[in-house]
């Protein structure tokens, strides 16, 4: 109970401190890192407090301290699972899926007919729930990372396609007319106008796709996998009631996902430095 009280007090204090920091130093780099970090720590403290305060069974919800301990103790295992699921399954699928989507967008961009036909159908296909598709893909592509990559491809393809198609349309009249006055070729228009103009949209899609790739790769392992991988570990560890390990894997997923997302956001900053949304602040 004492810990819970402390957690609540900490939460209150940290929130006030954060508001104060945010109000005064919001444009400082260190504050931009510190404020969310403190918020995260607050969540963890609160979690620890609640688990201790309400005496929640560790097989239901382990305390953050227990998770950290388990994490530290099984780094080798976690790294192996990370390599299997993220580096092989998710990354391969992400690259393939996004690449295919970009190429497809450029190809169907030339044909309004194909676009009008493909987009609604694609929309429909994208709505197929992965929990239904994953077993099928495991059946088709086997148990190893290839089937996970296939799931990821299916998951990321459509969001990226939609954004890229929208992006290729994102040039304004004036910009296109300018190209017309030069009687520019399709290639020139594509490379000098439409691809640069599409980048902000593309990155929108690419960022969404990062979290989808992760989720896809992990979930696909529930439907059959070799005896390693994050999804495999989560499902088996639940069966063994090793909840700290489960949450360690989840922590890895969240870290990897945030890192992946952050990397794409950084790349976006570099590539679309000219876009107003990047220039604000």
């Amino acid at each position, binding site marked *: 109970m004492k810990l819970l009280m402390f957690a609540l007090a900490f939460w209150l204090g940290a929130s006030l401190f954060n508001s104060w920091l945010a109000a005064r130093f919001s444009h400082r780099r260190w504050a931009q890192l510190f404020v969310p970090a403190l*918020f995260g720590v607050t969540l963890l403290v609160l979690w620890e407090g609640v688990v201790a305060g309400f005496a929640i069974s560790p097989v*239901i919800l382990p305390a953050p301290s227990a998770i950290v301990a388990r994490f530290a103790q099984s780094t080798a295992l976690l790294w192996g699972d990370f390599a299997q699921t993220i580096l092989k399954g998710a990354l391969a699928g992400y690259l393939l899926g996004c690449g295919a989507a970009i190429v497809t967008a450029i190809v169907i961009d030339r044909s309004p007919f194909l676009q009008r036909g493909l987009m*609604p159908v694609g929309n429909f296909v994208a709505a197929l729930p*992965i929990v239904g598709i994953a077993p099928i893909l495991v059946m088709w592509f086997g148990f190893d990372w290839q089937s996970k990559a296939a799931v990821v491809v299916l998951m990321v393809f459509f969001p990226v396609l939609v954004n890229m198609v929208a992006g290729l349309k994102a040039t304004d009249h004036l910009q296109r007319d300018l190209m017309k006055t030069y009687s520019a070729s399709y290639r020139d228009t594509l490379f000098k106008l439409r691809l640069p103009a599409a980048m902000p949209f593309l990155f929108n899609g690419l960022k969404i796709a990062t979290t989808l790739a992760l989720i896809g790769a992990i979930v696909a392992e529930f439907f059959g996998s070799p005896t390693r991988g*994050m999804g495999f570990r*989560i499902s088996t560890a639940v069966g063994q009631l090793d909840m700290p390990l489960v949450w360690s894997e989840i922590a890895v997923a969240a870290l990897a996902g945030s890192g992946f997302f952050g990397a794409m956001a950084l790349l976006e900053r570099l590539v679309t430095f000219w876009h107003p949304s990047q220039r604000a602040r």
Partner: protein
Amino acid sequence: MRNLGPILTVVAAILVIWYGAAVKMNAKWVYDQAARAGAEVSTSQLLRETMAQERPVLPAPHQVAKGLWQGVAGQKITSKRSLVFHGWVTLSATLAGFALGAAAGLLLAIGIVHSRAMDMSVMPWAIASQTIPILAIAPMVIVVLASLGIKGLLPKAIIAAYLSFFPVLVGMVKGLRAPDAMQLDLMRTYNANRAETFWKLRLPSSMPYLFASLKVGIAAALVGTIVAELPAGATQGLGARLLSGSYYGQTIQIWAALFAAATLAAGLVVAVGAIERVVLRKMGMAA
């Protein structure tokens, strides 16, 4: 409906490819069986048998269509074998979850737009929250909620809400910030307070973003519900239907449930689109 032609063309192309793939992928089994029986397979026999298997690797389109038709029209809709029945179960949880998620996303977005502290601290964690494979921990969530006495529709709805709040949050943060500096300055010249600025400027200008994100959100809510239905005791709903199809390797049942789910999703998105058109027209924004 000028899109009809192109859509039909694409669908036709897909069907052709699908049939081809069905023959190719199901052929191995036919050959294996023939080999076990010590028989030869002719081409016509191959074509016939690849499209009429009970557990095909890839069911032929007409098999799926038949499965769908039987599921939808071949039963009383109250029957446990009726896809309409299972669809309804899923739909109700989806709508409840979507309402929860959209409300949460909206409230958070409002908070973020109005409070720097929330903006700086919540956003990174909202992103991190979506990298947690909820599909992987859904079973635990169900168990935890059950231990708190929360059962039935609500746990499913909560998982659906978890998946649908994020698109709404992101879209609405963008949308509520859509007013340009001049539009905001205008409000300042009137010394309008936050509430007035919100109702008269931020909310109206966020409408296009709102509906775009609601469309994504409702599709996500459906996925969430289906995911939550897997471990919820695999009883009712399209998710349970998908899973029980998987246990028994009933490919056709899986595909039929898959298509039912996708149709439901498409229907929900169309419904949101219809609401969007009405609202935007009322607001005079349907250009």
